[in-house]
């Protein structure tokens, strides 16, 4: 179409941006972008964060159930509507546990960390730097595992 890379619909990127805007505004408004508030929840002094997580999941749950019945394909990509289903294996438990230790220690998760930057919290760059270091370490390790496995299969 209009010279967009990969032939994407011209409204694709603007829509992603608008979705991110609403998502980030919600994280700011709910105070989930503040590590202190997440820690208060995990330490059982303010249970309000339950409403953020379940409130959001109810909205997506309704959309994921209703939208596929109304339309077959998404207008900007032509892709069929599906749900977010990932296969279960032990990595879900191992990774979830490592993430849990990190979340409980810092009070911050990826989306909330991006939003935290937007509310002025420059100190959160420590957490963002850590997240990139962690993602890099596991990526290098798993890339090596994968190439070792493919070499073993070739033999």
């Amino acid at each position, binding site marked *: 179409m209009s010279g967009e890379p990969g032939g994407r619909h011209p409204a694709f990127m603007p829509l992603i941006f608008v979705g*991110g805007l609403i998502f980030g505004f919600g994280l700011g408004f709910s105070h989930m972008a503040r590590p202190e508030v997440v820690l208060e929840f995990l330490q059982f002094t303010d249970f309000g964060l339950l409403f953020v*997580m379940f409130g959001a999941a109810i909205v*997506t749950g309704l959309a994921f159930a209703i939208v596929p019945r109304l339309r077959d394909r*998404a207008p900007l990509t032509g892709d069929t509507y599906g749900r977010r289903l990932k296969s279960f294996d032990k990595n879900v*438990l191992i990774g979830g546990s490592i993430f849990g230790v990190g979340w*409980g220690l810092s009070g*911050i998760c990826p*989306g909330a960390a991006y939003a935290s930057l937007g*509310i002025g919290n420059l100190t959160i760059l420590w957490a963002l730097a850590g997240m990139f270091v962690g993602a890099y370490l596991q990526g290098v390790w798993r890339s090596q595992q994968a190439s070792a496995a493919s070499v073993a299969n070739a033999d």
Partner: protein
Amino acid sequence: MITESTIPLLTAELFPNGISRYAVGGLLVGLGAVVIYVGTGIAAGASTFLESTLSYVSDQSRFQRYRSSRDWRIVFTLGIIMGAMVYALTFQSGVVSSSLYQPGSTGDVFELGGFTFWLTDVQPWRLFLGGILVGIGTRIGKGCTSGHGVCGVGSASKTSIVGVMTFLAVAIGTAQIVMALGVSP
């Protein structure tokens, strides 16, 4: 025995900051994910951005698999940052107020150009070390609070429900231990 007069007391104890800011914020987080879903069919999570962005600087196969989505994931993340900034310039700065919005007392605030910005008091070593574990764990565990927690649970995915129960339980245990050890903030 629970009487009518103890219910508000109990609510005030469990929810000292009320529930409206949390509920409204949560609905908006869900709405942001739904806007993207309706337009594109994508059920987005926030943590893939970490690996997809690393594909710009590293040739590791683990990162290169996210090449095709790395550009829009940057736009999504910029949107999250800007959306939170819109909140900071309005409600956080007191320019806009609502009975649904309860300001907080955590952390530090600073003024810049007439607007109020916020800084955490949580110590940098906790943020950095915790961040490393979040970066490792979310990517090995196939998702984070948004991917598993919002889109996965919204999809009634058993994998995501187990994932959320795992990281929530471990996070609660960790935060309780850290508090018991006297680490604050």
